[in-house]
């Protein structure tokens, strides 16, 4: 399978990349790891006339602890996320999630920014970013703006990105020390997108849940932040009745498609099961 013809651009600064994207308009696509875009181009489902490769922009590989946040440059690969001691110490759920994305080869090339910005409901990082309360720095020719991951996704492949804008950085508030976390993904095989997946971050104090945040992957046109389910857990001991109520609240907001991964009813139930498992793991991991 051979893609259609296109011109290749390899800018070295964010400024030149966004200027190019704006100037070339709809015929241009930014290229990060390429493992979502290139398959589409090979089957000619996508035929951009210009690719703007972001790989040579050094500034997009930042990985830093700044105050109470970690800042991750958009071109940071999943492989780099997995091997970062900084991230593994401060936000270990990032590593747990990156490890269930695709396969080793794809994780060397696949980037966290591409995963978050593409708007594919099957991507794993978006629901995690919603769970963590992350925000995205979007950069255009006019400068930067900040959009919460919880507001970024408008529909399948529809995001808050304006024409000519790219996602340049992700800022994640560092969860409190001793927090519990879990990312649980049901997939048919290595490399598959989730049938359903759940991200959970909680804090506990003296056996009582003091905060809870839940994200759900691939059970709607967009990633889902299950705010109500999280609220239900707070103040409880994570007893069975409360967990059941939270799971029901999470299932209620899902709206999955029936596809080769299963009928919608099944995928909704699996979202509930993934939430239960992720929550249980988070509970065991939470100290205090």
């Amino acid at each position, binding site marked *: 399978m051979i*893609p259609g013809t296109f011109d290749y651009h390899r800018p070295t600064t964010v400024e030149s990349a966004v200027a190019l994207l704006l100037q070339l308009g709809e015929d241009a696509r930014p290229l990060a790891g*390429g493992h979502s875009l290139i398959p589409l181009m090979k089957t000619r489902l996508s035929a951009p006339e210009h690719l703007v490769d972001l790989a040579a922009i050094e500034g997009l590989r930042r990985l830093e602890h700044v105050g109470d946040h970690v800042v991750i440059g958009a071109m940071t690969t999943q492989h780099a996320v997995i091997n970062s001691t900084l991230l593994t110490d401060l936000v270990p759920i990032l590593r747990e999630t990156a490890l269930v994305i695709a396969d080793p080869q794809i994780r060397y090339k696949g980037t966290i920014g591409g995963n978050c910005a593409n708007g594919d409901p099957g991507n794993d990082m978006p629901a995690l970013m919603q769970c963590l309360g992350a925000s995205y720095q979007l950069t255009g020719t006019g400068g930067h703006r900040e959009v919460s991951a919880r507001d970024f996704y408008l529909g399948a492949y529809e995001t808050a990105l304006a024409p000519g804008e790219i996602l340049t950085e992700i800022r994640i508030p560092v969860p409190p020390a001793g927090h519990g976390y879990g990312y649980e993904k049901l997939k048919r095989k290595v490399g598959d997108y989730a049938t359903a997946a759940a991200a959970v971050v909680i804090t506990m104090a003296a056996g009582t849940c003091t905060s809870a945040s839940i994200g759900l992957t691939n059970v709607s046109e967009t990633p889902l932040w299950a705010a109500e389910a999280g609220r239900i857990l707070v103040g409880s001991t994570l007893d069975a009745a409360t967990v059941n109520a939270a799971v029901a609240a999470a299932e209620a907001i899902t709206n999955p498609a029936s596809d080769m991964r299963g009928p919608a009813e099944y995928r909704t139930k699996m979202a509930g099961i993934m939430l239960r498992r992720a929550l249980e793991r988070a509970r065991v991991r939470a100290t205090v």
Partner: protein
Amino acid sequence: MTKSHIKVTINGKAVEALVEPRTLLIHFLREQQNLTGAHIGCDTGHCGACTVDMDEMSVKSCMTFAVQANGAAITTIEGVANADGTLSALQEGFRMMHGLQCGYCTPGMILRAHRLLQENADPTEDEIRHGIAGNLCRCTGYVNIVKAIQYAAAKINGTPYQEAAE
């Protein structure tokens, strides 16, 4: 569409070429460089038969444009043997442990295992299996591939080879 001028190092040799931007790395290697060791199994990014080593990453060359490799150092199966022409530890491992049957997946398996052992010199069976999760083999059932990688790790580390528990 304008062709792009690229410079790459392939198996230690500097190469300059003109490529169409849409040329995939696998086609560049196989058709322009006559390096037919890396195989096209699926052409969809699933099987790993096209795996090559590029700047210390295992990449699927059917999912990478040759222009993206500009400036990179690439190793293919043709560049894996020892300098004196003898088999590398991994090649020897695949031979000794019957890590191949039809051999179609083998170049990709060996290149992937090469990077895995660079990053983790003494992997457990579990780590090997997760490490080669992006490479499909339709023949062996993977048991002998795992043994081949363990054999190579032991040889490189100078430790006795221990067979994987089955």
